[in-house]
């Protein structure tokens, strides 16, 4: 019989205050001694580590529930406080209660009619399920300004809150006992008006008379290597409280002077306050003997590493692994290369049936060290056998249907792969396992963009989903091929990068002819084993195939596309099919007739027309196959033709250099003239700008323009046969601006969008005269990277570079916080069965998602339906 686990669900969680009686009721023991363990290392009775509070030491049994360490959840104890103290978290609420109620009769300081009205409104709000305490502030404000009690006519004395826990009424300090007395007088109905739900929390419960002591499981002590015990911060704090409490009660009993009792009471209040929150302003934080600030209750919950964000919203998990990543162009985008070492440790539970029992038996027999094997065996009665310490042969024999075998991760299994920061859902995708030798995770280069991964030492994590449901969900919803289209803009986020683009360009550009051997070899590398079409050219008895023909072998039949490639120069009159640089792409019935393949065709994150169309029309499997093949084909092509780049790609002839320096001289001249005009006071300011600002803007303009002109000159000497230019123009890597900076002129360096001006008074460096506004005195770099920067230019460049670095650091922090807030605000929204978007309360935020109910990931770049495409399909293009 198969045991079914019926999951328990938490349906609701109620919050409330505990009354002193309740605290005593749940308490398993009164804690009276401030000591922990006796000489033998056993917990002292009625001490802080009393074994009725729970156990943490492995050998002991809990005296309350009888369970051992690990199973015993821990039980609360309590301390009877000699005098009541205020709970710091509630001083504001107490203050509100005190000043809004009559000092004498305890009624709320509101007239009968007002009171009725507020009560009615609160009742209404409760009925609709709104936050009924929303009016508390208003009520308190109106009540606390009332001077005379409408019920007993008592004149109200001024009440002040002395942070953090003191109350002063016309120069008399109120003791917590006084405060408690007053709170007791507040009626249940009045408490509601003050935002206190009297069914759950009485106002006087905000003053503590009994203090609950958390179990030892909450504050475990650590045994150091030396054998000495080190107690938790909370334990230290409780020790303080018990000691002072003891002294206080002794003094009271001995009838000590009022002053001493008051002092001790104050001290007790301090310790209880810091026990709850050690970051209250106005009092010094409690410290450890070593001077370290103690981490008490509030500190445990708060902040990024606190309980909520650090342990509850994000948890540490089993069945995960982390290592460095490296590329493997030969595996599919759906796959992940997993080192055998990791595959041996990550396990998957498999239930034995009569169909798989023999296979599983073999795995068990091989044990945990021989891959593929198994790590653990769980018998039908739930007993675990760790194969590391057992006789695998023997255990294998006992295996029968119903047993669960935790076998090693095997090829074809599913893993979740993740790289931090997980900024979008494509940061965690499901990959199929491929166990490979080596110590790194291997991934296909095309999945770098969604993870934003590179291989300069990046590490990534995997998680192994255990249950069949989880595995099925991962495979169906999270697999890489299902994530090709980004929900951000409805276009592909997975696609070719870098060499994939250059390779495809080299293969498909005009004049690429391949022999039969070459064509076959390329296609075989890409995994295509179809027969070649008719050769394009036959010369001297040798058959040649055009690169476009070879490329077309990967395109699905029936694909029709027309678009402009990335290399398109945006001529004023497009020559279409007659384009000289072959930038007009025409694909008919899966045949690439004209144009080249470049970034526009299948680069990730670009407007990749071909890939985009394939995913949307032929499905994700077809797209994955296309991508797997096209990347291999492109790389094979690049290898076959040879592709390399080096600094001599940026060589330009001397006459070009001369022209560039002429342009730069000219620019300097222009700048000087502008400065002259400015100095003469003849510069015409832009509206709303000062003269100085205008001058700067004009100079920047002149210099930017000259840099562009030097770039244009350099570009003329760098044709499309230059590898660096091929990369830039096809969109594979780098830009023409990068090339310009390498060959011609680096240009103006800037900080905060302005020319450099900081350093000395009126000048950037002592090499210039004060007030020099000329081009090179303010960070214009006229050299090229290749020629090398002059020392001063290098310095300026470093100034600009530093700003970039600071900028990046600040930006990641800012955008990270913005995203956290966005996620937090929006995460509860989902589409309901009726098509509306609602939040967790069920309140409608949108009646139809996005006004048309269209999922951006399934849209055609944002449009609901591609009408043209449908008409073309039916009527014909």
């Amino acid at each position, binding site marked *: 019989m198969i045991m079914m686990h019926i999951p328990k669900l*938490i*349906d609701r*969680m*109620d*919050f*409330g205050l505990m009354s002193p009686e309740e605290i005593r009721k749940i308490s398993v023991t009164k804690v009276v001694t401030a000591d922990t363990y006796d000489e033998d290392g056993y917990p002292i009775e009625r001490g802080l580590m009393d074994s009725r509070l729970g156990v943490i030491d492995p050998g002991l049994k809990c005296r309350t529930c009888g369970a051992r360490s690990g199973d015993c959840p821990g039980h609360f104890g309590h301390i009877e406080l000699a005098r009541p103290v205020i709970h710091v*978290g*509630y001083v504001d*609420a107490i203050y509100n209660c005190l000043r809004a109620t009559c000092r004498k009769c305890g009624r709320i300081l509101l007239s009968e009619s007002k009171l009725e009205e507020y009560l009615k409104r609160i009742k209404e709000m409760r009925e609709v399920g709104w936050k009924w305490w929303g009016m508390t502030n208003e009520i308190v404000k109106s009540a606390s300004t009332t001077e005379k009690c409408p019920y007993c006519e008592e004149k109200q004395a001024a009440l002040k809150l002395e942070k953090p826990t003191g109350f002063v009424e016309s120069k008399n300090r109120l003791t917590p006992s006084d405060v408690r007395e007053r709170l007791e007088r507040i009626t249940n109905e009045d408490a509601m008006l003050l935002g*206190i*739900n009297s069914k759950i929390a009485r106002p006087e419960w905000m003053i503590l008379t009994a203090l609950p002591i958390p179990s030892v499981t909450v504050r475990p002590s650590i045994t150091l290597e030396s054998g000495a015990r080190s107690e938790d911060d909370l334990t230290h704090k409780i020790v303080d409280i018990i000691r002072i409490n003891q002294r206080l009660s002794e003094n009271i009993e001995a009838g000590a002077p009022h002053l001493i009792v008051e002092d001790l009471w104050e001290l007790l209040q301090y310790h209880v306050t810091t026990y709850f929150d050690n970051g209250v302003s106005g009092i010094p934080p409690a410290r450890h003997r070593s001077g370290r600030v103690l981490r008490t209750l509030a500190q445990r*919950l*708060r902040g990024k590493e606190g309980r*909520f964000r650090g342990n*509850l919203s994000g948890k540490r998990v089993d069945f995960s692994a982390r290592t460095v990543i490296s590329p493997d162009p030969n595996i599919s985008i759906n796959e992940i290369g997993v080192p055998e070492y990791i595959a041996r440790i990550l396990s998957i539970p498999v239930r034995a049936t009569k169909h798989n029992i023999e296979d599983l038996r073999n795995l068990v027999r091989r044990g945990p060290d021989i891959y593929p094997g198994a790590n653990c065996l769980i018998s039908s009665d739930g007993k675990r056998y760790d194969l590391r310490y057992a006789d695998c042969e023997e255990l294998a024999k006992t295996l029968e249907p119903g047993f669960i075998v935790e076998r090693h991760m095997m090829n074809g299994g599913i893993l979740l792969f993740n790289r931090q920061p997980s*900024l979008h*859902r494509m940061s965690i995708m499901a990959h199929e396992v491929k166990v490979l030798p080596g110590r790194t995770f291997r991934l296909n280069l095309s999945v770098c963009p969604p993870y934003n991964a590179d291989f300069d030492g990046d590490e990534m994590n995997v998680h192994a989903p255990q249950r069949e449901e989880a595995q099925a*969900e991962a495979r169906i*919803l999270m697999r890489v091929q299902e994530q090709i289209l980004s929900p*951000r*803009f409805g276009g592909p986020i997975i696609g070719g990068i870098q060499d994939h683009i250059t390779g495809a360009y080299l293969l498909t550009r005009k004049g690429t002819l391949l022999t039969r051997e070459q064509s076959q070899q390329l296609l075989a590398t890409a995994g295509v084993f179809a027969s070649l079409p008719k050769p394009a050219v036959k010369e001297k008895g040798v058959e040649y195939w055009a690169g476009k023909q070879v490329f077309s072998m990967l395109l699905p039949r029936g694909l029709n596309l027309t678009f402009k490639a990335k290399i398109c120069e945006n001529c004023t009159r497009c020559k279409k099919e007659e384009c000289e640089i072959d930038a007009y792409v025409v694909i008919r019935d899966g045949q690439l007739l004209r144009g080249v393949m470049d970034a526009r065709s299948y680069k990730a994150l670009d407007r990749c027309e071909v890939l985009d169309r394939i995913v949307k029309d032929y499905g994700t499997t077809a797209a994955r196959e296309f991508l797997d093949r096209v990347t291999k084909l492109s790389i094979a092509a690049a290898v076959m033709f040879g592709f390399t780049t080096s600094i001599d790609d940026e060589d330009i002839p001397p006459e070009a250099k001369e022209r560039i320096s002429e342009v730069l001289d000219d620019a300097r001249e222009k700048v000087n003239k502008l400065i002259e005009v400015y100095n003469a006071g003849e510069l015409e300011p*832009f509206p*709303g*700008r000062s003269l100085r600002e205008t001058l700067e803007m004009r100079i920047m303009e002149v210099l930017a323009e000259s840099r562009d002109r030097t770039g244009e000159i350099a570009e003329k000497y760098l044709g499309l046969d230059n590898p660096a230019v091929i990369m830039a123009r096809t969109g594979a890597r780098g830009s023409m601006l990068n090339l310009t900076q390498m060959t011609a002129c680096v240009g103006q360096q800037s900080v905060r*969008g302005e020319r450099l001006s900081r350093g000395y008074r009126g000048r950037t460096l002592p090499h210039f005269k004060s007030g020099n506004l000329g081009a090179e005195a303010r960070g214009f770099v006229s050299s090229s990277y290749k020629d090398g920067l002059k020392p001063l230019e290098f310095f300026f460049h470093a100034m600009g570079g530093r700003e970039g670095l600071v*900028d990046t650091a600040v930006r990641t922090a*800012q*955008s990270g916080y*913005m*995203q956290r*807030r*966005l*996620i937090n*605000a*929006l995460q*509860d*929204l*989902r*589409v309901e069965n009726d*098509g509306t*978007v609602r*939040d*967790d309360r069920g*309140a409608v935020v*949108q009646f139809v998602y*996005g*006004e*048309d109910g*269209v*999922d*951006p990931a*399934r*849209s*055609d770049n944002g449009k*609901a*339906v591609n009408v043209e495409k*449908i*008409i073309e399909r*039916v*009527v014909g293009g």
Partner: protein
Amino acid sequence: MAGVSPDTIKTEVRKLDGVVPEAVVKGLEGSLLRVGKERAITREQLGEIIKGVNQAYVNAMVEPGEAVGTVAAQSIGEPGTQMTLRTFHYAGVAELNVTLGLPRLIEIVDARRVPSAALMTIYLKEKYAKSKEKAREFAQKIEMTTVEDVVLQTEMDLINIVFVLTLDRSRMQRRELTPSKVVSTIKGALKVDALIDGYKLRIKPTTQSLSELRRLASKIRALPLHGVKGINRVVVKMEDNEYVVYTEGSNLSEILAMPEVDQTRTSTNNVHEIEAVLGVEAARNAIIDEARKTLDEQGLDVDVRHIMLAADMMTASGTVKQMGRHGVSGGKASVLARASFEITTKHLLEACVHGESDRLDGIIENVIAGQPIPLGTGSVELAMRREGESGRK
């Protein structure tokens, strides 16, 4: 064979009304009429096209349970890392400062009361938009001029306790102001005596105290003489064959009331001002527009639906709320959701006094409890009755 007539196309396509979005219907009609001119479309083809469009629309719809909120947040947040941080950038109008990039996006989701660079785009009615003079005149009219703008020199006569202003003749003339006008403004706003002596004004406070005089001086300098309050700098620009007025600083209600202004297009980048003047729906559109502009300017492609959802969430309560602890997140129903976001202890302590109860309907609450979250496959609430078992006992 002759194709169907344009009228048939229209009537057939109109049958899709209410079935698919209006934009699609319009696009389909336009494309069909265009194609219909070039070649004949048979009735069968027309039917097939309409069926195809309908099917394509159904295929593109969101599935119930889809975590649209999280996806929207990620889609807006993720490009944030790629944005520039440089606050001021000269875009469009070189003369005006505009906040762009990440700081502007943060400003929008923060729903700041006052944007760090308020800006208005004022379109003029036909009559004024075509003439440079009239546009200039209007610009002149709305630009706020304070006393300080027309003052050449200020002196404090400490013996007589008098504040002496020397006005700049040329600046006064350019703004068509006279000393007497300035004096009447000052007298109207403050209780003072003022004497005119050509372009010199001698202003005497009612009391004889020095500190009073100093306070008075700064008050007088800031007095507006002319123009619309808040409009600090005005630039007229030719755009698409009409003159458009851009202003630094904004005052939507007063500008909209001016007769020269084309109220249908004039706008400001201050979302709260739009909310106050035109209402939440307008504010919602303003948020969408502003966020979209910011992202587009950076060359980042983000689907509008994500921005719309964010804007709708910010305005769903009826007022513009910030995406943070004082707005959407702080007003959540769930105690645990609020506590796990910010100001943890305060939310927990208050929840106890209020006797709140957390229904665990949201996402983060269930993550905290270690339960399946109500999204996607987790949103299905189905119970299976196993074989051989009868219903609940």
